[in-house]
């Protein structure tokens, strides 16, 4: 049985197979499987997971290494029952930057005895949080200009029909007097646009609107 295989069982197998630290300064570490990333997938965080217990009165720390760089828990005395502790980090200890696949693939996990003896490790592995950022398509900054100025309408004092094509917005700018807008010719319902103000109505579903103003009032119109 390979050395690393003593801490490779999932779920952990308790005292069936384990590694035991018998003296202060004793250290072990093992490599982990390479991470399989989907296209575009990123490594958000990593957590070295060590399942261990105390069979005597020893203390120690769990260790995550990349090359010569190391992160570890505090030295402490584990309890008598197997429990998993984690060395959590958002960034590679080797670079202080977000994890790369190569750095995750190079991780070594293990533990060091600080004092006493009898620390038993039955499982070691690396947990990684992965996600694939959404791909945001580049939006063009410009869109085709679709403004069309219409010939100014000179009011007659009665309803005058304006056809607004489907999808278009009607721009109305009465110059000297207010203009009433109706959806039915001769109807009582109206929207009054004050003189010398500009209003946009739409987008249209292909509607005809009716404009009425004091005879002689010039109404500037446009479509966009």
């Amino acid at each position, binding site marked *: *049985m*390979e*050395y*690393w295989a*003593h*801490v*490779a069982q*999932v*779920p*952990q197998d308790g005292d069936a*197979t*384990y*590694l*035991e*630290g*018998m003296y202060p300064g004793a*250290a*072990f*570490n*093992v*490599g*982990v*499987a*390479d*991470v*399989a990333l989907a296209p575009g*997938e990123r490594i*958000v*965080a990593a*957590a070295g*997971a060590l399942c261990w217990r105390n069979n005597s009165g020893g203390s120690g720390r*769990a260790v995550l*290494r990349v090359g010569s760089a190391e992160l570890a*828990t505090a030295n*402490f005395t584990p309890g008598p029952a197997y*429990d*998993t*502790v*984690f060395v*959590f980090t958002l960034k590679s200890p080797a670079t202080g930057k977000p994890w790369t696949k190569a750095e*995750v693939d190079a*991780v*070594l*996990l*293990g*533990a060091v*005895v600080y004092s006493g003896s009898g*620390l*038993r*490790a039955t*499982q*070691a592995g690396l*947990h*990684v*949080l*992965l*996600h*694939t*950022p*959404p791909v945001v398509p580049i939006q063009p900054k410009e869109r085709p200009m679709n403004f069309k100025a219409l010939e100014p309408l000179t009011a007659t004092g009665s309803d005058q029909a304006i056809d607004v094509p489907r999808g278009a917005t009607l721009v109305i700018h009465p110059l000297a007097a207010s203009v009433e807008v109706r959806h039915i010719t001769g109807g009582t319902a109206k929207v009054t646009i004050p003189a010398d103000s500009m209003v946009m109505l739409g987008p249209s579903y292909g509607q005809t609107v009716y404009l009425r103003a004091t005879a002689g009032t010039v109404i500037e119109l446009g479509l966009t």
Partner: protein
Amino acid sequence: MPAQWFAGFEAGDTNELVGLAGAVSVGAAYKRSGNYGCRISVPQSTGTAYITLANGFDANGNPTTVSRTVYTQGFGMRLSTLPMVQGVWEYLLYVAYSTTHRASLRLDGNGMIRLHVGASGSPHIASFGPIELGRWYFCELAVLPDRYIWRMDGQVVAQGLGGPGGSMNVAYLGKRFNLASQGYTLDVDDLYTCDDGMFYGPTARVARLNANANGTAAGWSIYPPDVPDP
């Protein structure tokens, strides 16, 4: 810093959690990704079944709860049964400061999930559903001092101004409070918590990389010991 903790149950156990109670189990049948997921079977009695999420680690590497003004969590969820009493709800997600309600997602017997932020008696802000049984969703909720964002499968369900009323230090999935004769079954997987409004979206997953090679140190003794060939 964004992510503060995550869990995928890929060691085949619940050691990534701060705590649990009641009928909580880890198994391959409950997975969203990887090899394992977690099932919370909230009982029909007044008993409890829930898991306690972490949002940090202590110096010894134990998942723990930390008081923060921002609490964001994401989790894959699959419901296989709904609360059994129509018109009565259960907590799906409960975010609190100790036992004080800060925000929650509540599950109705009709399959609707409702968001509440602030006092526990506050009216719901938004709803989603009805949930399709047996389908995985990815739920994300960010609760900030002055606003909230709730997403399902990466799509915003609700966002707006409104605070939880204080800092938060704990979140539960499946928590219940004295609600009798209901119960529901919830599978969860690929959980994370953050201390800012960061969302990782429905592509988030947790993987485990098992030991598969010797390293650079072998100072610990092996058990069982190697038996030399005869």
